[in-house]
């Protein structure tokens, strides 16, 4: 089972490496969206500093969503998804491996770039660190919740827009606690509460999301 977990993970990472342009696109999307905001609202440093957490997080939600249709979409099209479902291993475990790969490819880069963008928005060292930590905790939630939407809309008409409709409302708590963590640090009240709530949310997502994704995948293949 562990071997299968590693195999799924390694295959997705290798596949993404061969198609790195796809993944880089959503990362650049993230950078561009964040960079557009100062042009829209003006370069006032105080305003930018208050907006920064929200802007970075909303852009992260959108960027994470952009890559969702690919998670199962290509597997569904080329038949590897059927092979995945028909292995004797628990599908939830294999799904977890796929989500881990998705997070590594779409979430971790966002967390790594975000501090730079935070500096652009005039955030100080402390809040930038918290921004990084919050994204590191929050993006796996985005991958897991998003995976449910991606699996539910497999092979469905207009699935790209539908994913957004299904998933974005479910992202609200992650957005609130993630952006809240940074705001709390800026305000000097400490981010520990927010970060632990994010971690709790991540635990819930790790337990429940693979089950929902696996069920949705089986339904999609019927």
């Amino acid at each position: 089972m562990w071997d299968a977990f590693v195999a799924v993970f390694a295959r997705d990472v290798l596949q993404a490496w061969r198609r790195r342009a796809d993944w880089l696109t959503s990362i650049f999307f993230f950078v561009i969206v964040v960079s557009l905001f100062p042009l829209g609202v003006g370069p006032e440093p105080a305003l930018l500093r208050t907006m920064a957490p929200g802007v970075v997080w909303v852009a992260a939600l959108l960027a994470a969503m952009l890559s969702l249709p690919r998670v199962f979409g290509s597997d569904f099209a080329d038949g590897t998804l059927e092979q995945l479902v028909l292995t004797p291993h628990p599908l939830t475990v294999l799904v977890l491996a796929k989500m881990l790969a998705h997070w590594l490819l779409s979430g971790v880069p966002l967390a790594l770039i975000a501090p730079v963008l935070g500096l652009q928005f005039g955030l100080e060292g402390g809040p930038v660190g918290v921004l990084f930590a919050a994204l590191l905790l929050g993006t796996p939630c985005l991958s897991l919740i998003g995976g449910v939407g991606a699996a539910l809309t497999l092979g469905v008409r207009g699935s790209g827009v539908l994913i957004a409709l299904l998933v974005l409302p479910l992202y609200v708590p992650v957005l609130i606690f993630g952006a809240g963590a940074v705001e709390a640090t800026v305000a000097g009240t400490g981010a520990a509460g927010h970060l632990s709530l994010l971690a709790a949310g991540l635990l819930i997502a790790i337990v429940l999301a693979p089950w929902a994704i696996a069920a949705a995948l089986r339904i999609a293949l019927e």
Partner: protein
Amino acid sequence: MLEVRDLACQRGEQPLFNGVSFDVSAGELLWVEGRNGSGKTSLLRILCGLSPAEAGTVRWRGESIHDAREALLHDTLFLAHANGLKDDLTVAENLRFDARLAGLHASAERIEAALRACGLRERRDLAVRYLSQGQRRRAALARLWMAESRKLWILDEPFAALDAESVDRLAAHLGAHLDAGGLAVLTTHQEVPLPAGRTRRLRLAH
């Protein structure tokens, strides 16, 4: 070993077939025939537990496949219409990941042997996207040369897009599988030299 009783299937609201019953025992091959849209693929998907049947039962080694899903999957190799290959990975990489996922024993030598058996040895390091349709099918079929541990082979149009030489090679391999006590259920529209005496036919009609 595979017992199917009174199977019924419908797609959307259209009934595809009903009252399908058959047995396949060790060393036998079942050739499922029927026109396009008669439900051949649906039948195969029901057999390996991908789709639910409208009615009827499928038993493998005496147990319903719904109760003993894992046992069925341990014994089954399903080759669908789609090849199940990743376009961006090489033939050898595809086989290696596939074997590890399926829990098959996949040493470098075995992969090498499987590729040689399918005539793909020279293309082992080529990304699947550069292969022709027939070569892709052969790459998908290479799994069969690593799947001795799988007793039940369920193959959807395995001969599609294959050249004459590959057809003969696959037919011979199927024969060897049956000799070893394996079972196979397959669909095909082609006249192929299926192992004589051990092949039974099932005709799906509306």
